[in-house]
């Protein structure tokens, strides 16, 4: 191994943060949806993928990347609202497995529909001109776009935090996450809350997909790999905890980044092993509620 300098390690760390940022965005939606609705959304990867494709479509129509940043979460969020209302709502009360199974089937359908609409091979997605190139961040050159991704993620987290802490709707969400029974007794329309939470969660997933598009291009299958990895993040962070998702997302990004420095073949195993260890030792993860839903 050539020259394992401090600079290289720090650069690797930074790369891990950028990688983790996408995991964080993806996992937040998953965590929110699980925390509020106790639904494991197996179609989350599909929403992520749809976000990237909506971006492709907007660019095809002549728009630019900045327009995408606004249109994509709105479009995907709307889709999420529709899915919750029509497909998931009928399953509440039937047992925790049914929404999981439904979203599992839904992911197949969504991926195939995208294949039919946009073809199987996928599209290249160019980094917006103004964000191309690399900057010297002190320890080495780092792509500007990845810094943007870190920044955008931080902005979304801030907006989400403000929403949850400072608005009355956010208060309902936090209360509902802690005790759905009481919230209902207090007269809040829980069904509407769940609908909106699902919409927000999927909107963030779509946004993550758009951010990821210039990094790896866009293919119909892009959602399934990140889904498995994101499950690791949500479990490690604690299902239902946003703070946990953030911490765990960055942790997983850094773990993958560091293992690829020392033993790249172990990259994938390391995160699943991490997930298994956490589940066995502390099933609720960092910040999740213990004994959640048997």
């Amino acid at each position: 191994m050539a020259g394992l300098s401090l600079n290289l390690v720090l650069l690797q760390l930074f790369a891990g943060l950028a990688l983790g940022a996408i995991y964080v965005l993806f996992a937040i939606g998953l965590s929110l949806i699980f925390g509020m609705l106790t639904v494991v959304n197996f179609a989350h990867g599909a929403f992520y993928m749809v976000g990237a494709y909506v971006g492709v479509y907007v660019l095809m129509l002549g728009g630019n990347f900045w327009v995408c940043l606004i249109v994509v979460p709105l479009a995907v969020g709307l889709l999420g609202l529709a899915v919750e209302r029509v497909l998931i709502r009928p399953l509440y009360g039937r047992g925790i497995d049914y929404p999981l199974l439904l979203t599992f089937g839904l992911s197949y359908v969504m991926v195939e529909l995208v294949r039919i609409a946009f073809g199987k091979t996928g599209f290249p997605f160019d980094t917006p001109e103004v964000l191309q190139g690399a900057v010297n961040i002190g320890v080495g050159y780092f792509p500007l776009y990845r810094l943007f991704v870190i920044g955008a993620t931080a902005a979304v987290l801030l907006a989400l935090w403000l929403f949850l802490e400072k608005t009355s709707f956010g208060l309902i969400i936090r209360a509902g996450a802690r005790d759905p029974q009481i919230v209902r007794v207090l007269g809040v329309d829980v069904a509407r809350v769940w609908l909106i939470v699902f919409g927000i969660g999927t909107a963030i997933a779509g946004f993550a997909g758009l951010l990821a598009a210039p990094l790896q291009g866009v293919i119909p299958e892009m959602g399934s790999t990140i889904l498995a990895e994101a499950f690791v993040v949500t479990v490690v962070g604690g299902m239902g905890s946003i703070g946990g998702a953030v911490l765990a997302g960055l942790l997983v990004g850094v773990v993958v980044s560091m293992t690829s420095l020392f033993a790249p073949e172990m990259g994938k195993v390391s995160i699943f092993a991490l997930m298994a260890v956490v589940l066995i030792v502390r099933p609720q993860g960092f910040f999740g509620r213990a004994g959640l839903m048997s």
Partner: protein
Amino acid sequence: MNEMTQPYRLAEAAPVSWFQFATRHRASIASLVVLVFPLVMPFTALAVNILIYGLYALGFNLVYGYLGLLSFGHAALFGTGAYLCGIAIVHFALPWYAAIPIGILGGLLMAALIGVLAIRTRGIYFAMVTMALSQCVYYLFYQAVDWTGGENGLRGINVRVVDILGVKLDFINPLTRYYVIAAFVIAAFFVLSRILASPFGAVIEAVRENETRAKASGYDVTVTRLLTFILSGGFCGLAGALQALHLSIVPIEILHYDTSGIVVMIALLGGMGTFFGPMVGAAAFLLLENLVSVWTVHWQLIVGAIFMICVLFFPAGIWGTLISRGKR
């Protein structure tokens, strides 16, 4: 003579409904269906696949349908059985009748390993742990290239002649191969039926229905769960071993969580917690996949949509719905 002096008599047996008859003789009926099956399938290899996936689903059903635990890692049990059987033949030149029990043993051991680690978690977490652990198994087998062939899969599981008590059967002949494999599947039916009808079978269902009460009645819930999981591993391991012999290869994809997902779909499609459900589900799923693939490359759309319809409207699956309609 009045009631007091008459010897106590059991009530007259009520006329046996077809449903009760079917349940009592379920293994035999399933076996009969299996025997005539290849004659109505488009091609024999598909019929064999249905048998194998049906057995895989039967094993899974033990844990999900009868015990109520959703596992997303059953591919590890199926795949370990396949690989161990294959490795026994390819690397150790063992005969088929030694390789199959090794496959079953592989399934049992892997289930014990995963079970011991996962069994204390509940609900959704159980699904997640099993998925994570089975992914670890996938990567481990992937890396052990010298034993498993890695990404290229294990090839060379070539059994040409099956020698049963001096009678030499041509395993290459499709129908002969089907019936040899069917023999094992039929044996599995009978074993499973005995297990379910035994006191242990009742405990399994008791744990699913009301865990606290089962515990209060003195049953060790954790041990019950673990034992059921291990038994399930035996059936899935057998299915895997048979798959290895049928295809003469073991692809690495067999350990991927997609294969875990497929058995979940099959079990739901067919009807969980029923005896015939998994087989019906396997037939429905594989036939659908086969037929739809002929018309369109977009078979995933159709299969996914049908699955969603089942979840929404027919949660008891095809067979489960038929039973409940039939009972009315």
